């Protein structure tokens, strides 16, 4: 395992743990998703740079476009949740519990 591999893997897993365990705000969850996407961007870029697969450098750009779409959809959901529930706290999303 190279240090680069370890770094982006631990960055991704930290973002995943942050998203999975303790979120009070929806915005914090979206920020954790963004952090995961950032580490994926760095991972794809470094993969193409280290393997000299230069034709692959387009993949991080595509990833960036898709993560931008995901982030904007998440922020739109933040707005919609704030309108219907009055707040962006995740504890308030409890209308559908069993």
């Amino acid at each position, binding site marked *: 395992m190279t240090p680069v591999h370890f770094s982006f893997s631990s960055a991704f897993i930290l973002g995943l743990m942050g998203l999975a365990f303790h979120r009070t705000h929806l915005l914090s969850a979206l*920020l954790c998703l963004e952090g995961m996407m950032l580490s994926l961007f760095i991972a794809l*870029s470094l993969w193409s740079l280290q393997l000299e697969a230069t034709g692959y450098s387009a993949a991080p750009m595509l990833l960036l476009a898709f993560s931008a779409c995901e982030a*904007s959809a998440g922020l*739109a*959901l933040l707005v919609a949740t704030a309108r219907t529930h009055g707040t962006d706290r995740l504890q308030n999303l409890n209308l559908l519990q069993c």
Partner: protein
Amino acid sequence: MTYLVSLFLFGLVVGLVAVASNPAPYFAALGLVVAAGVGCGVLIGHGGLFLSLVLFLIYLGGMLVVFAYSAALAAEPFPESWVDRSVIWYVLVYLIGVVAVAGLFWGGWYESSWVVVDGLKGFFVLRGDVSGVALMYSFGGGMLVVCAWVLLLTLFVVLELTRGLSRGALRAV
């Protein structure tokens, strides 16, 4: 260079710890800014200047501004920073966890590379990543179309989510 890139990699992990340890969104956005900044540094250290520029301009310049704006809208009177009691424990646990896992792999590190791209740069006019991204406009045209389509789709998704009927507590339009 090796020390600098190692420092940047460490900074990336610390930035994600700062995001993941559940501070107020205000500070989490700050942690993400730091992580994106050192991410640019990592990419420069590996020779991906154009990708680093894209990360800096698009990510920091575009998306994080929007996130900082949303964080400002959702602001609280007393935001929890990383030294608050509810957050500091998570920071410590995550840092110790990362160090422990790194120690687990200790001795198994191999320096495959601080190889930078353009090992063959005597033969090329452009940098490797620039020509690679430029491929998106010739051979990768299909992917470009897909990306354009999904951006258009997102426009409609955001439109349909945020405007709407008179349901819910707060509804301006």
